[in-house]
């Protein structure tokens, strides 16, 4: 019989979840946690880069043997450590392999979490579907950490993988925890049309140009001081404006602009950004040494998420969140390239330690009663309810596409009130129609139609929170750009949005921003 009670349950095996699990296993007793998020982040980050280095991450090196740094978009000094251009990949594999060191970390591979167990006002674990066994199990923990990543799949065109469906956000939201700043969605300017494959910032960091069909480096019209090294939101908006002005190329997947690396030469491209060449050759059939790369903006990252403090604590005792699924509010309304993985590392470690301290204070494992009840409820909801529904007119693939197109059209790069109003209304209707989705696959083992239904259910909660949060912020700030309110409005909106789940539309509330050492100023480049 597999063990089902633990000190800490971590949901999600990405960078943030793995880092938290390792930190909890090592439970560094020397760490003192500063309370202010931004300053804490800056102070701790180099330490995490070195920690990863000690665990074997193949960071690129300078000739003197030290870790190389390079400039990413929006930064004036070189401060990003990189591993050729496969940063995320190498961080993930370094952490995954390092996690194998600890017998105390029990991996539950291919268990899909469907809900949280809440007992007496505290989170005491999760209910999960064992995909291979086709069973539902309760996994109890003194503390639970959500690290399920982003929610890019609520949009039609995204760089995110198929599994980025906002599960952790919806799990917390359903347990009464607010989602913070969900309107802050980042669109990355350089994605390959059709597939959404991301061309890394490093392509511009190394000197790549963005050009329109007239061959003009159009950023001189929008951001002459920074040109291609401007922040992602400004670059993405400029692309939409070039498209509207009729200066974009036209291809089988719609309008696009050009990313030009030709002047960098074969040597630099092969040495510094090999993956860019590999991806473009493989997935576009073009060689960036000789040809323009077609690019367009796509959803990439969400700054918002489960509301937490710097230790990853949520408003529900025992529940933590970290990584892209969380919103610690260090990113403000925007985010510089490369901050996300650092955030996963820094806050992953902090959160793992905080959860370990919380768990240590609790002498016994949770009582089984609440878990048994939650398990029964989920079995009834998922196996008897969802799985029992006969195939009908509404399909999961059909509703998913409707939601994605709606989000793309009305809650995208530029927003305004009437479109947002439409989106909120239509999403509500899709939510209602979801109740009629039927399933063709009736098996319990590895039922990916069933997981798709559960994921759509999560995504609809998240999409509604994004649309309503966006509609309520009647100003423009960072990634949130309202054509009807183009100015930033500190008098009314220097605060975080909180979305609370209700039986109807989300309830929107605000909390003040804690301004610390760095007073916010309007960005000027």
């Amino acid at each position, binding site marked *: 019989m597999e063990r089902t009670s633990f000190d800490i349950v971590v949901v999600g095996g990405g960078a943030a979840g793995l880092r938290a699990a390792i930190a909890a296993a090592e439970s560094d007793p020397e760490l003192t946690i500063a309370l202010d998020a931004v300053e804490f982040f800056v102070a701790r980050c180099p330490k995490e880069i*070195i920690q990863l280095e*000690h665990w*074997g991450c193949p960071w*690129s090196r300078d000739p003197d*043997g030290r870790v190389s740094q390079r400039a990413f978009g929006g930064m004036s000094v070189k401060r990003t450590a990189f591993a*050729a251009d496969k940063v995320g*990949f190498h961080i993930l594999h370094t952490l995954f392999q390092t996690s194998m060191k600890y017998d105390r970390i029990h991996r539950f591979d291919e268990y899909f979490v469907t809900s949280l167990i809440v007992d007496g006002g505290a989170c005491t674990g999760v209910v999960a579907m064992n995909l291979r066994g086709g069973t539902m199990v309760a996994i109890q923990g003194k503390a639970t950490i959500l690290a399920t990543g982003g929610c890019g799949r609520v949009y039609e065109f995204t760089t995110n993988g*198929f599994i980025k469906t906002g599960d952790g956000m919806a799990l917390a939201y359903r347990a009464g925890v607010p989602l913070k700043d969900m309107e802050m969605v980042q669109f990355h300017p350089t994605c390959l049309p059709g597939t959404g494959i991301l061309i890394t910032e490093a392509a511009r960091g190394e000197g790549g140009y963005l050009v329109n069909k007239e061959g003009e480096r159009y950023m001189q019209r929008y951001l002459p001081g920074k040109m291609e090294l401007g922040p992602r939101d400004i670059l993405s908006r400029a692309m939409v404006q070039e498209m509207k002005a009729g200066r974009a190329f036209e291809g089988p997947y719609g309008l696009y602009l050009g990313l030009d690396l030709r002047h960098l030469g074969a040597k630099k491209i092969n040495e510094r950004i090999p993956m860019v060449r590999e991806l473009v050759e493989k997935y576009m059939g073009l060689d960036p040494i000789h040809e323009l790369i077609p690019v367009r903006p796509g959803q990439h990252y969400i700054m918002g998420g489960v509301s937490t403090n710097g230790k990853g604590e949520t408003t529900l005792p025992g529940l933590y969140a970290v990584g892209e699924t969380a919103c610690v509010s260090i990113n403000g309304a925007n985010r510089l390239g490369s901050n996300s993985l650092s955030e996963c590392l820094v806050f992953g470690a902090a959160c793992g330690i905080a959860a370990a301290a919380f768990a240590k204070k609790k002498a016994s494992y949770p009582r089984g009663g609440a878990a048994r009840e939650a398990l029964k409820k989920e079995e009834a909801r998922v196996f008897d309810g969802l799985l029992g529904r006969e195939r009908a007119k509404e399909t999961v693939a059909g509703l998913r596409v409707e939601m994605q197109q709606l989000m793309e059209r009305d809650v995208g790069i530029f927003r305004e009130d009437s479109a947002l109003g439409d989106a909120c209304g239509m999403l509500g209707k899709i939510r209602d129609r979801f109740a009629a989705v039927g399933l063709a696959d009736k098996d319990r*083992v590895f039922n990916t139609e069933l997981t798709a239904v559960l994921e759509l259910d999560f995504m609809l909660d998240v999409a509604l929170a994004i649309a309503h949060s966006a509609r309520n912020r009647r100003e423009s700030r960072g990634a949130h750009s309202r054509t009807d309110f183009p100015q930033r409005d500190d008098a009314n909106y220097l605060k975080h949005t909180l979305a609370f789940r209700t039986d109807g539309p989300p309830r929107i509330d605000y909390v003040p921003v804690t301004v610390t050492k760095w007073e916010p100023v309007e960005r000027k480049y």
Partner: protein
Amino acid sequence: MAASDVVFRVKRYRPESGGRPTFQEYTIPYRNDMVVLDGLNYIKDHIDPTLTFRWSCRMGICGSCGADVNGQPRLTCGTYVRDVHRGAVTVEPLSNFPILKDLVVDFDDFLRKLASVTPYIVRKDWGDLRKEYVQYPEDVEAYRQQSLCINCMLCYAACPVFGSSPEFVGPAASALALRYNRDTRDEGADARLARLNTKAGVWECTFVGECSVVCPKDVDPAAAIQTLKFLATMRHMRRLLMPGSSSR
């Protein structure tokens, strides 16, 4: 079938219905830029939601979408239909692994093998946590190739030795063992070589080389295994000649 259609023959296996795997044919619209995974997703979304397969990144990085395509282990997200299709595209679960459902196979055995080669940095003294270990660009180059493995299991599906002796540690786990043995920061080489210097370790390999042919990331696990055989032999010789010595 219209000229712009393509036929996918997909192997189906439903554990809850019992029976043996069968083939099912689907006719779907063809696009010149479609990859095999696009075809599978078209089937799942528009024809048959019961078809079951893994995927996530569709950019050759997560390693989850492997299948035998017209008899060859491939990443379905990186295989263009135009490159493989001769009338029909046949998609089957990766060979040599137990099938869980349709194209989904069980990888647990690999994860145990990976864990058995201590795939992490081993050191007695971790030194100053605030200082990086010095490593020169050529030091990184020495293990870079093996560090690119995405655990996609195509090499195991292609390996006839693994097919007939399932206890064989196999290509990817060996390549990762070499990756750490070549890392200047690591001190665990000796124990790893001891683990691999066995029948079920690298000596099972008869150097067929198929693993390197199918590897989508150019990890060249076949060469890694050959190198490990050499290093294991050297270690053995050294221990015979100089008992008590250990080696890096």
